[in-house]
């Protein structure tokens, strides 16, 4: 209905959030809620899969900024995967690749978590 959806999947101790549709100031609260749920359940290893996301604005990026410190303080991380070039450009323009690990594929992100 709102044009945005978060699908949750678990692989061992890693939570994978699959984003779908558009992520703007209207739908960002839904992502916030999904991440808050992870934190509440002490799930600190999180992959965000962007494969089905068609649009992102700074309101969406702000959500990641708002959670990353807390997640890392608990020894976890927020890793990104499967960004199309349009989505990647927004992250890139704002310097996110210096702050977050971005993987071509969800599996690569998963391997990185598991290899630690």
């Amino acid at each position, binding site marked *: 209905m*709102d*044009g945005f959806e978060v699908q949750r999947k678990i692989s061992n101790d890693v939570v994978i959030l699959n984003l779908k549709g*558009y992520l*703007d*100031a*209207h739908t960002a609260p839904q992502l916030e809620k999904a991440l808050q749920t992870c934190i509440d359940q002490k799930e600190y290893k999180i992959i965000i899969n962007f494969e089905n996301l068609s*649009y992102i*604005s*700074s*309101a969406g*990026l*702000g*959500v990641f*900024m*708002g959670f*990353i*410190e807390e997640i890392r303080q608990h020894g976890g991380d927020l890793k990104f995967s499967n960004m199309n070039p*349009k989505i990647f450009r*927004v992250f890139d*323009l*704002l*310097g*996110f690749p*210096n*702050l977050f690990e971005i993987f071509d594929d969800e599996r690569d992100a998963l391997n990185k978590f598991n290899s630690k």
Partner: protein
Amino acid sequence: MAAKSNKFHLKIPSQTDNLEIIRDFVAKIARKVGFNEDDINKIELAVDEACTNVIKHAYDNNSKNPIDITIQIDYQKLTILVTDKGKGFDPTKLKTPDLQEYLAEMRVGGLGIYLMKNLMDEVEINSKPGKGNQVRMVKYLDKGDAPPPQAANSS
């Protein structure tokens, strides 16, 4: 396609659930004028950021006050004005966002105007504290088609 001189004007309630309508409206006009998909994406995002600021900062979320969007097409140039009658601010106090510093301060935000300036060819912010704000953004039609200077050199 040569763009004609043309003016479009949209007044829409200052609510986040209208952002999608605004983006689609702007994208359709930009496409009609002849921008490529890449530039259309940039224009869409810049307008979204300007309107999100009106909703969040000028009118403190989900008011019924209108966002005023004017799109003017003059030959090779698309000019977008996003105007509000909200509280305004002092744009000279803005600084370029530093993500590392943000993290340290646990601050979220400050990215919108920086994005607009990177996505559009010209961005001007005209704010009158207490009276409102106007963002003026320009995108040139031919720039997108030419390769960037570096690429032109290296080939």
